[in-house]
């Protein structure tokens, strides 16, 4: 404690060493206090100090009997101890020693007189201060040897304590740094986990970043991410003191965050009150003392700024800035994740939207197997809304249910076909009805994996039914053309209507009076339905006459709700009618008949079905009219035949009377017989309405008036021949047979005639007829040209004159040719 500070006081090495112990200005500690007590007692002194000599003062870590905790170096005696590091400094009378005589503590209060100090020496030999005892009376004898040794030991104890203290402090601060690092890592990890779990939800990501940053930077009282939005930054994920400011917008130009965003550099705002960039009104509003800002970057672009703030100035340091940067980086990752997720979601939404917007039904099905591993059913996975529309069931209700649950009694093929697709991997195309829905679907099924398949399909009920109706009409047309009776036609038409429309009854009835009653023909019924054939009075079934009287179809979708029939629904239900159509058939402006379709269940008769029924009714009416016309034609034909035959009889009578005086009766009879042959030809022709005849019948008919059947052998195809050919052939054969009877084979009992004919296709198609007589008398050619008969024979078939006659002695042979096109009837 003397005035001039020894040069060693300011030795920087010594001062650094002192600082390294970190002991200056720390609170009293029991270990040091114990040592000064012990020093007092051992040296029997009133004052003891642990004095540390800093560059500008001496500071007492422990003291007894001396109030101040420090003094300037002018008052320090200990400073002199630095000069003798190896030994005690003992001054028996401070007033007598030049180093301390002037010391204020000596000259003034507390008037110290004796000093003995042991140096506090580091292992490196640097003296930091001393452990000293002081007395207020001089001690000329100083300290005893024992006291000196004790003081040295105690000084060593002080140094040991200081060393230990320094080691502990070093360890603690290391631990603190570790803890901080751990906190940071933990916070970062939590943040990253939260970001990962956020599934790209931006708000969750931002919240996680701010939470983590605040956890990592304990000084932060508030945190926010300010997202770039146009020329502003918008407060998001607000926490702590700024929690009330979600959505706050601050300008990019004219705010500290804006500065950070524009420079893309982290920024430490040490003191808001003096910050050059701060937006002044925010300082109070946000209770802004200091803050750190870190930009959130995506490549070159700035997305926003992470801000951590405190109401205190200088709350943050560079390390906090670094941490903020770390979390801002995490936010960048989160943004990228969010963006990627959003893209995936958008993609997913895109495809899903596409499937939803498809007009085709789309489903994914999963096979369900029984205990034996056979596919027994399948479950709906994905189902788009078009499916619901096409099937008539809410799509969302189908998911998770099986097809057999949804459609009780559905056809097995709806399971087996898709099972096959999954098993073989071969896609299949189908057109099939769901019977319970009465709807048809066309589509394609394809395999997805070992257990699943996809189906894309459209409803084609309209097309299939239209095809069925078209086919039915064609079929009906064919049938009606071939049928010859009205009841057959009605039966066929009723069946066609019933089956094609899937109705439960169909029939046809003749209307009686002014649509008063109806006489229903035997009807077609689905199994289990009763016949309603017979007479019915319209009014027994409701107010249903008016439409039919006007010639309009009577269409009732549900007899129990339709105002025309609901009061008579019971009587209709009794005969199995819940829905009905009566399609009128008109004749000369009156409804004369009705085509009927019934269904045992209510149903909506579609426009197409009604058109079909109309079409059938029309065709039946046309068919009926044709049959009637044909019947009428038949009656007329018969009548005409009678008149013709009667007239021919009269012609015979006139000829006979006219030629009564002719002596020779043979020409008269020949004439009569030619008329007869002509009439036979007409007989055969009449059977086919005079348009055609069967060749065998023609030949047999004309020859039967000449001789027994067994005299003739016929050999040739039974052609349909024209009316002209019939007459020509009849007259020709009549003359040939007449001659054969007179002169040829038929004049002898054993004689016969072979008549053979064929068609020749070579060149112009021709019919060739051979007349060959056998077993008659020897033939000689006629001596003269002969009369009408001979001329007729030479004229041949159809007057072609293509005739060759051979008077073979064994029997006459003749060949006749005619163009086949004229000979044969044109079959319609």
């Amino acid at each position, binding site marked *: 404690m003397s005035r001039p500070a020894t040069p060693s006081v300011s030795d920087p090495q010594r001062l650094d060493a002192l600082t390294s112990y970190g002991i200056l200005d720390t609170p009293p500690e029991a270990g040091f206090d114990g040592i000064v007590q012990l020093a007092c007692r051992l040296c029997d002194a009133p004052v003891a100090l642990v004095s540390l000599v800093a560059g500008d003062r001496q500071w007492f870590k422990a003291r007894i009997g001396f109030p101040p905790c420090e003094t300037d170096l002018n008052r320090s005696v200990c400073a002199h101890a630095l000069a003798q590091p190896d030994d005690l400094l003992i001054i028996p009378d401070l007033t007598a020693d030049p180093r301390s005589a002037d010391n204020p503590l000596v000259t003034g209060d507390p008037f110290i007189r004796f000093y003995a100090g042991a140096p506090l020496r580091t292992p490196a030999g640097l003296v930091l201060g001393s452990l000293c005892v002081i007395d207020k009376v001089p001690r000329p004898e100083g300290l005893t040897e024992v006291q000196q040794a004790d003081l040295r030991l105690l000084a060593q104890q002080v140094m040991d304590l200081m060393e230990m203290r320094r080691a502990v402090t070093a360890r603690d601060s290391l631990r603190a740094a570790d803890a901080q690092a751990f906190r940071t890592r933990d916070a970062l990890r939590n943040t990253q986990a939260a970001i990962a779990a956020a599934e790209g939800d931006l708000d969750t990501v931002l919240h996680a970043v701010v939470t983590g940053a605040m956890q990592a930077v304990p000084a932060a009282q508030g945190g926010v991410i300010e997202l770039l939005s146009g020329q502003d930054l918008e407060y998001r994920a607000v926490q702590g003191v700024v929690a009330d400011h979600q959505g706050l917008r601050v300008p990019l130009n004219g705010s500290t965050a804006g500065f950070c965003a524009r420079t893309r550099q982290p920024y430490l705002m040490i003191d808001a009150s003096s910050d050059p960039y701060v937006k002044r009104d925010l300082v109070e509003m946000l209770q802004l003392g200091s803050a750190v800002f870190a930009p959130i970057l995506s490549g070159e672009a700035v997305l926003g700024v992470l801000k951590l703030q405190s109401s205190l100035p200088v709350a943050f340091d560079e390390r906090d800035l670094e941490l903020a940067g770390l979390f801002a980086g995490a936010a960048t990752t989160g943004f990228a994740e969010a963006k990627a997720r959003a893209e995936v979601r958008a993609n997913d939404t895109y495809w899903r939207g596409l499937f939803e917007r498809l007009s085709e039904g789309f489903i994914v099905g999963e096979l369900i197997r029984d205990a034996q591993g056979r596919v027994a059913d399948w479950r709906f996975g994905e189902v788009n809304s078009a499916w619901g529309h096409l099937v008539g069931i809410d799509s969302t209700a189908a998911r998770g249910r099986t097809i057999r649950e949804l459609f009780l009694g559905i056809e097995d093929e709806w399971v087996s076909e898709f099972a096959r697709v999954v098993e073989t991997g071969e896609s299949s195309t189908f057109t099939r009805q769901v019977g319970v829905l009465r709807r048809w679907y066309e589509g394609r099924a394809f395999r997805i994996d070992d257990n699943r398949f996809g189906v894309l399909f459209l409803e084609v009920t309209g097309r299939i039914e239209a095809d069925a109706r078209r086919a039915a009409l064609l079929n009906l047309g064919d049938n009606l053309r071939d049928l010859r009776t009205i009841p057959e036609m009605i039966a066929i038409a009723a069946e066609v209507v019933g089956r094609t429309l899937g109705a439960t009854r169909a029939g046809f009835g003749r209307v009686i009076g002014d649509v008063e009653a109806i006489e229903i023909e035997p009807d077609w019924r689905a199994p289990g339905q009763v016949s309603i054939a017979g007479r019915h009075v319209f009014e027994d079934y409701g107010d249903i006459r008016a439409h039919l009287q006007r010639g309009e179809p009577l269409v009732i979708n549900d007899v129990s709700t339709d105002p025309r029939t609901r009061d008579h629904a019971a009587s209709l239900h009794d005969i199995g009618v819940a829905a009905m159509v009566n399609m009128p058939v008109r004749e000369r402006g009156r409804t004369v008949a009705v085509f009927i379709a019934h269904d045992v269940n209510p149903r909506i008769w579609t426009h197409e079905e009604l058109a079909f029924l109309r079409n059938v009714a029309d065709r039946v009416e046309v068919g009926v009219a044709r049959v009637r016309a044909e019947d009428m034609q038949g009656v007329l034909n018969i009548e005409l035949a009678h008149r013709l035959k009667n007239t021919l009889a009269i012609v*015979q009578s006139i000829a006979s*009377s006219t030629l009564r005086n002719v002596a020779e009766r043979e020409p008269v009879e020949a004439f*009569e017989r030619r008329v007869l042959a002509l009439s036979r030809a007409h007989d055969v022709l009449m059977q086919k309405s005079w348009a055609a005849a069967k060749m065998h019948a023609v030949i047999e008919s004309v020859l039967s008036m000449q001789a027994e059947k067994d005299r003739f052998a016929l050999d040739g195809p039974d052609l349909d021949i024209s009316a002209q050919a019939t007459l020509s052939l009849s007259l020709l054969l009549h003359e040939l047979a007449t001659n054969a009877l007179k002169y040829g084979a038929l004049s002898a009992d054993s004689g016969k005639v072979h008549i053979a004919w064929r068609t020749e296709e070579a060149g112009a198609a021709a019919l060739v007829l051979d007349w060959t007589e056998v077993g008659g008398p020897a033939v000689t050619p006629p001596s003269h040209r002969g009369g009408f008969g001979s001329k007729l024979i030479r004229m041949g078939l159809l007057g072609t004159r293509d005739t060759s006659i051979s008077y073979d002695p064994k029997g006459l042979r003749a060949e006749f040719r005619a163009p086949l096109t004229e000979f044969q009837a044109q079959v319609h």
Partner: protein
Amino acid sequence: MASRYPAQPSYVLVVQDDPILLMMMVEFVENAGCEAVEATTVAEVIRLLETRTDIRTVFTDLDMRGSTVGMQLAITIRDRWPPVELIMISSQPWEAAKIPARGIVLGKPFDRRKIEAAIRTFAG
């Protein structure tokens, strides 16, 4: 009959409302060696049969005015005068079941040979 009553002519009642056809039918009867008695109405036929017991055969046209008159007459004759033979001509075919017993229907126009043969068989 011819053998029992060789001197007696065989009378055949010819029924025909058309005079030209009547001439032809009478010719057939005469060519067959019989005597023709002519009638042109149903009433006449009935009256003649009621009065003339010597008429054993009726030769009638079924196609008389009024479509079923001819056949009605034939049936009536078979009913009232069962022994009388019936030779009928017609321009239309008749079902065998509708033809009175022992009756024969021949077609039009006439097949002289068949008609004259039939008259000879029944009345000759």
